[in-house]
């Protein structure tokens, strides 16, 4: 069946409502004394919002409203075309992408992002930082900028978005509540001693640049992934199946899902955007002592 294409409806924009123009219901208007203007929050504000993962599909109405009502918008997005879409929503969108550079520490870049946003907040502007996916997941700058803005007395807010993690659960059919699910930035397993629970799912982010202590590279190589496999092999057999996943950022894309044995991970081509999932490697083990204790409690409460 042919379906005619229709352009998305133009959204009605509503001017921001100022508190002085709100007419209160009588019971509040009568009993609530008029409050003097608050000096708690300084002029200027910051909202960090998530764009979601897929163009057109995930942006929430509230995140869009933050974007449309801002004086200036900063953008750190996964795809240049998504950035073009954002530019349709606001006349002053400033890309944060040019601050990345090969050989430059990403921490330097992220601090620059914070400085850029805070400079405008301190100038009295209502600033919106737009980050792909969820603005608070694997994103240092939004958390830092909000913390800094609040510390200086400005209003600051984080608005969640649909994250890569959310898409992963949907596309791979994983319920993190079934066996439990651990998430790590992959390098943490190399830099720190962490305890992996192989009875649950293990999700590893940024495997493509695992082991990069310099923060200056956007990929590492097979030898670094071999070090990761060596760590994982303490809890999983080398023939354990792993899933390499990448979600769709454009609505004409499909999720990319590859399955391979753990031992083959070092030799696989892996981009920074791909995530590695290890399904459970051992069955859940019953805690018999605790079950007996609970049974005793139930008996005492007469609900057994």
């Amino acid at each position: 069946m042919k379906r005619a294409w229709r352009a998305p409806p133009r959204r009605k924009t509503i001017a921001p409502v100022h508190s002085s123009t709100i007419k209160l219901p009588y019971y509040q208007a009568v009993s609530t004394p008029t409050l003097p203007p608050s000096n708690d929050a300084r002029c200027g504000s910051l909202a960090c919002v998530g764009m979601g993962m897929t163009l057109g599909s995930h942006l929430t109405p509230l995140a869009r409203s933050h974007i449309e009502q801002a004086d200036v918008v900063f953008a750190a997005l996964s795809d240049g075309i998504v950035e073009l879409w954002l530019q349709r929503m606001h006349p002053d969108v400033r890309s944060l992408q040019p601050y990345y550079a090969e050989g430059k520490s990403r921490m330097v870049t992220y601090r620059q992002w914070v400085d850029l946003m805070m400079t405008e907040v301190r100038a009295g502007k209502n600033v919106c930082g737009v980050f792909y996916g969820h603005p608070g997941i694997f994103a240092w700058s939004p958390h830092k900028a909000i913390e800094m803005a609040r510390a200086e007395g400005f209003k600051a807010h984080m608005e969640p978005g649909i994250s890569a993690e959310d898409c992963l659960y949907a596309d791979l059919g994983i319920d993190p509540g079934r066996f439990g699910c651990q998430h790590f930035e992959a390098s943490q397993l190399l830099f720190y001693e962490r305890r992996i629970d192989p009875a649950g799912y293990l999700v590893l982010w940024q495997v493509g640049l695992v082991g990069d202590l310099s923060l200056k590279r956007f990929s590492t190589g097979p030898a670094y992934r071999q070090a990761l496999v060596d760590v994982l092999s303490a809890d999983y057999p080398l023939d354990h199946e792993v899933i390499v996943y990448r979600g769709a950022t454009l609505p004409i894309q499909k999720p990319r899902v590859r399955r391979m044995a753990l031992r083959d991970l070092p030799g696989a081509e892996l981009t920074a955007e791909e995530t590695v999932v290890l399904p459970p490697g051992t069955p859940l083990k019953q805690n018999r002592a605790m079950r007996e204790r609970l049974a005793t409690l139930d008996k005492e409460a007469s609900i057994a």
Partner: protein
Amino acid sequence: MSDTIELLEAIGQNATLRHASVDELAPILEQAKASAALKSAVAAGDSSLLSEEFGHKPNRAPQISNAPGHEEDEPDHDGDDKPPHPSDPGHSPPHKRTPHEQ
């Protein structure tokens, strides 16, 4: 020719179009007078072909190249790798240092 960004937004917002096969989407794009770049990207299942229309726009993926395991790089970090305390989302008072922070 239709605006490609608007077409992508329409596809992303439509349950039928978002999950349509190439064969289902092709005549719809034809009817909508989609750009040659968009039609070939859909036909080939290769979104990089959109670069013919928009130029090559490689973006770093900020969310996943931002490493929380490396926060000792922060100058104000004490180096003990202690987990940070989340801030209070409810209000925005001027920051007061706690005894632990001093």
